[in-house]
């Protein structure tokens, strides 16, 4: 078949400059692949995670109860408002590794493993039901601990009694918080095994699915209160807590639902940016193509081509780029979606079922892949082909007939610098639309870069602020509580420890004038003059004395219960005890969630617990936590001493480890943000390189003149590189200005996605100046290649250029 000559030209043009063609194809492919990756992965994650989550009938409510028999679950399930209820026994213990290291393990007992109706699990390997002296291990825990079916593990209860269990099955439970994130293993054992381990055979948690409005938080909590008031407490069992499973989730939502939504939102922003930048590179490269071929356009017109034919040729050229970009983007996007889906599956503990490219995502990619480059290229093509034949053939390359506007007149007044520098400065502003495009790309990159750093700094500042609430070397929880004097005496016996404090905790509710109860909040009793906390007060004052009816709440609580204000008189209820308090202060947020602080004496009066503490905090040098090694040593001794004293078998934590757990999660998000900022910087650099190349191409004859009048290589290089640096510097200024609104917005989105809270924003001056350094390097490197090309031109060929 005979190919029309126009098509031959199009194909040869593409082939004649492979690096330029590859740049356009690659930039289209990257943008479209990003769209495919993000949309498809979002779809796969939501399809598989949420379907697997819903398939196992998730508990909408957990009611924590003092020991009860499984029959109580049947009674609660008989309520009209309850669809189903299931009894669970949970027990915290330690799992001893082969190398003698311990891990926390949450052991669960179900009443009937043959008929699991809520939070159903799947068997990956081995048995579905734990036999006597056997344990089913959740697969994430098994992977992290290196366990397989048939292995034997040692479970230690109360830091004293050790029991050897055989791993009989590896199960998959999508409802628990994975060990990779929360550092606690999970296993199922039978009630017989629990009894064999010396524990009483009772249950302590009810998992509930409500009959109606299972997603309505208030309704679900009301059903919990009804179950407590009508069935559980009348039957003689004490309810210690009613909670929605997850981390601030709505009932029935996956525990990380809000974080997933936030993360997908961040990825969507990245996708839009990627498409935008692809668009920019297409515009830039097609502009370069048009500039380079403007004379050819003139020739085409002189031999009879009408404008639509010429424009059609270049549009066809772009369309070929688009199709080639799509051919790469579709599988690349699918590969990206596969990676992201498996990354999420590993992180959130679900199975990816099918990796496919649904028509909706493919259509979206194809539509954007064809429309975006065509629309982006339309402007340079239409404006390039509009040029009259005479100008295209005889005028192009002079570039001196631009209108002299006020800005040029202003620039012409700058005379005290040397001529090459003046030339660089004036050259920068000669093609304003091109300059604006380059500035927009680099400004966006700069704003995102500074925003990423500001997000990191805001998180770090928040973590730093939390240090005010954790002014200790080590802390140890004392399950069930212990006598304050005993605890403090034991703690003070640890060599080096000069301060020990006992804190108490309870769960309570606010009761209003109509006797309505709020949701539950954690109440902390501590010495009013505690030296292991240095609260950052947002309003009011800290607790002012022992036994005063005062409370201090944190900003999280105010967010959850906006009617709480300084001076509010509130009634708190713990169990059957009620007392009136005055709110005297509001502290900053500190990642613990909602908290009510009161003096230990007030706490005793409210709860009726005499001199009992639940947590001990120790420090060697009050006000100055030690190094991680010092903290670790103190924690080890605290743990040993309390174990030996029979006070606690829990694992002591250090202030350093507390922060490390947070920063590990932050770092994943920040790494993605930094990669995004890096990509933007690279793309911005490519954009600047393209712009500088076009500028040099357009001014080839001027460079010839410069050479003819004696400009050496260094002078030509200087003219070009200084122009690149001026553009960089301008983009930095605009980037800095743009970062003022962009940085807090990004920080707010990211922090809310991670922490479900709004934190104070901190602008990163370090990021601002680091970007200045980067953008100057980009300016130099982006202009070096065109500059060297210009410096290599010989005077004769340059002056012949027409």
């Amino acid at each position, binding site marked *: 078949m005979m190919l029309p000559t126009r098509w031959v030209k199009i194909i040869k043009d593409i082939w004649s400059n492979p690096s330029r063609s590859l740049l356009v194809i690659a930039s289209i492919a990257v943008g479209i692949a990003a769209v495919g990756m993000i949309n498809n992965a979002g779809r796969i994650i939501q399809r598989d995670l949420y379907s697997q989550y819903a398939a196992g009938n998730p508990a909408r409510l957990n009611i924590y109860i003092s020991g009860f028999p499984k029959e109580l679950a049947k009674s609660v399930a008989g309520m009209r408002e309850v669809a189903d209820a299931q009894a669970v026994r949970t027990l915290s213990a330690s799992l001893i590794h082969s190398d003698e290291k311990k891990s926390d393990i949450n052991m669960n007992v179900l009443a009937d493993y043959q008929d699991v109706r809520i939070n159903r699990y799947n068997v990956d390997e081995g048995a579905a039901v734990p036999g006597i002296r056997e344990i089913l291990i959740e697969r994430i825990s098994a992977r992290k601990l290196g366990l397989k079916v048939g292995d034997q593990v040692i479970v230690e209860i109360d830091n004293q009694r050790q029991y050897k269990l055989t791993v009989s099955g590896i199960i998959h439970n999508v409802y628990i918080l994975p060990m990779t994130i929360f550092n606690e293993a999970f296993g199922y054992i039978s009630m017989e095994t629990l009894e064999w381990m010396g524990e009483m055979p009772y249950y302590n948690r009810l998992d509930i699915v409500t009959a109606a409005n299972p997603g309505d938080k208030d309704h679900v909590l009301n059903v919990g209160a009804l179950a407590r008031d009508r069935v559980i407490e009348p039957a003689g069992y004490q309810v210690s807590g009613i909670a929605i499973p997850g981390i601030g989730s709505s009932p029935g939502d996956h525990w990380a639902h809000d974080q997933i939504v936030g993360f997908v939102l961040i990825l969507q922003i990245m996708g839009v940016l990627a498409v935008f930048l692809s668009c920019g590179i297409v515009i830039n490269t097609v502009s370069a193509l048009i500039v380079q071929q403007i004379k050819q356009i003139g020739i085409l017109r002189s*031999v009879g081509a009408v404008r639509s034919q010429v424009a059609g040729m270049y549009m066809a050229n772009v369309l070929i780029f688009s199709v080639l970009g799509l051919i790469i983007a579709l599988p690349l996007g699918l590969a990206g979606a596969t990676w992201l889906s498996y990354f999420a599956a590993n992180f959130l503990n679900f199975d990816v079922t099918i990796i496919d490219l649904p028509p909706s995502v493919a259509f979206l990619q194809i539509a954007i892949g064809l429309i975006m480059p065509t629309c982006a290229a339309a402007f340079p093509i239409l404006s390039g082909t509009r040029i009259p034949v005479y100008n295209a053939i005889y005028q192009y390359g002079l570039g001196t*007939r631009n209108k002299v506007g006020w800005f040029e007149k202003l620039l012409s007044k700058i005379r005290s610098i040397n001529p090459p520098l003046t030339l660089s400065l004036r050259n920068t502003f000669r093609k304003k639309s091109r300059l604006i495009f380059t500035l927009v790309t680099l400004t966006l990159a700069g704003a995102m870069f500074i925003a990423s750093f500001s997000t990191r700094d805001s998180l770090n500042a928040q973590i730093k602020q939390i240090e005010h609430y954790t002014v200790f070397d080590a802390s140890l929880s004392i399950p069930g509580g212990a006598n304050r004097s005993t605890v403090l005496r034991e703690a003070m016996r640890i060599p080096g420890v000069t301060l020990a404090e006992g804190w108490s905790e309870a769960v309570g509710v606010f009761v209003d004038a109509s006797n309505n109860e709020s949701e539950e909040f954690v109440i902390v009793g501590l010495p009013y003059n505690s030296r292991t906390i240095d609260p950052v007060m947002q309003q009011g004052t800290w607790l002012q004395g022992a036994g005063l009816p005062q409370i201090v709440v944190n900003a999280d609580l105010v967010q959850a219960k906006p009617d709480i204000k300084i001076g509010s008189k509130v009634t708190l209820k713990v169990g059957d005890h009620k007392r009136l308090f005055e709110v005297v202060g509001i502290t900053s947020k500190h990642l613990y969630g909602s908290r009510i602080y009161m003096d230990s004496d007030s706490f005793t009066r409210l709860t009726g617990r005499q001199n009992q503490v639940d947590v001990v905090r120790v420090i060697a040098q009050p006000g100055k936590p030690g190094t991680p090694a010092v903290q670790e040593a103190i924690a080890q001794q605290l743990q040993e001493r309390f174990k030996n004293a029979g006070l606690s078998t829990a694992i002591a934590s250090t202030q350093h480890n507390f922060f490390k757990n947070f920063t590990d999660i932050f770092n994943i998000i920040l790494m993605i943000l930094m990669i995004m900022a890096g990509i933007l910087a690279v793309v911005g650099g490519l954009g600047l390189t393209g712009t500088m190349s076009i500028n040099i191409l357009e001014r080839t004859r001027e460079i010839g003149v410069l050479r003819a009048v004696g400009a050496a290589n260094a002078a030509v290089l200087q003219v070009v590189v200084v122009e690149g640096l001026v553009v960089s510097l301008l983009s930095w200024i605009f980037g800095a200005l743009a970062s003022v609104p962009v940085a807090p917005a990004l920080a707010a989105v990211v922090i809310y996605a991670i922490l479900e809270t709004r934190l104070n924003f901190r602008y990163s001056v370090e990021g601002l100046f680091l970007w200045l350094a980067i953008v100057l390097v980009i300016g130099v490197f982006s202009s070096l290649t065109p500059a060297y090309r210009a410096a290599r031109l010989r005077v004769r060929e340059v002056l012949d250029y027409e």
Partner: protein
Amino acid sequence: MKSNGNNHGNHQLIELKDVTKVYHTPAGDFTALNGVTLSIGSGEFVSIVGKSGSGKTTLINLVTGIDDPTSGEVYVGGTPVHTLKEGEKASWRGSNMGVVFQFFQLLPTLTVLENVMLPMDLSSRFPISEHAERAMALLELVDLADHAHQLPSMLSGGLQQRAAIARALANDPPIIATDEPTGNLDTKSAESVIKLFENLVDQGKTILMVTHDSDLAKRASRLIEIADGKIV
């Protein structure tokens, strides 16, 4: 053979009536042509001579429709070229006018044969199946068939100019307009190009040639001299 601009051909193929062209530059207005009236008949071989800046290139650009007059009328084959829009002029040029430039202006990525086929492809005057055969015949006419599949950059200036002439003939236009066709060639190549033009005139083509070479100009059947934008 000097002309005062009156018609010497069989009938008026090209007519310029009181044509003026003024270029507006930052340095001020420059009148390239000043009230030129001219008729050229079919089958003439016309040389336009003059000093640099006299307006000869402007004259040929107005005839080819590459540039527009500031005032006056330009008729080519009865077509009022001065009234045509840019796109209409391109289509019209594709069928009626072959243009040969001093610097050949061949498309560098296309072979010589493809360069010659390009105007046919743009005009759709000949069926696509005939393009290659016809282009090859034109290359044979300019004695370039052996170089048909080479890129322009592989040819000497003289051969490139022959290729440009073949391209100008692609759609069999009645007029060939050429601006300094030998300006970039050695004497031998220039001679062969002029012979080619003479052959084309013998075949009935009208040739309009701008040149500063008075010896070559004398080879034309008619000579028009321009000075300061006027025919003298």
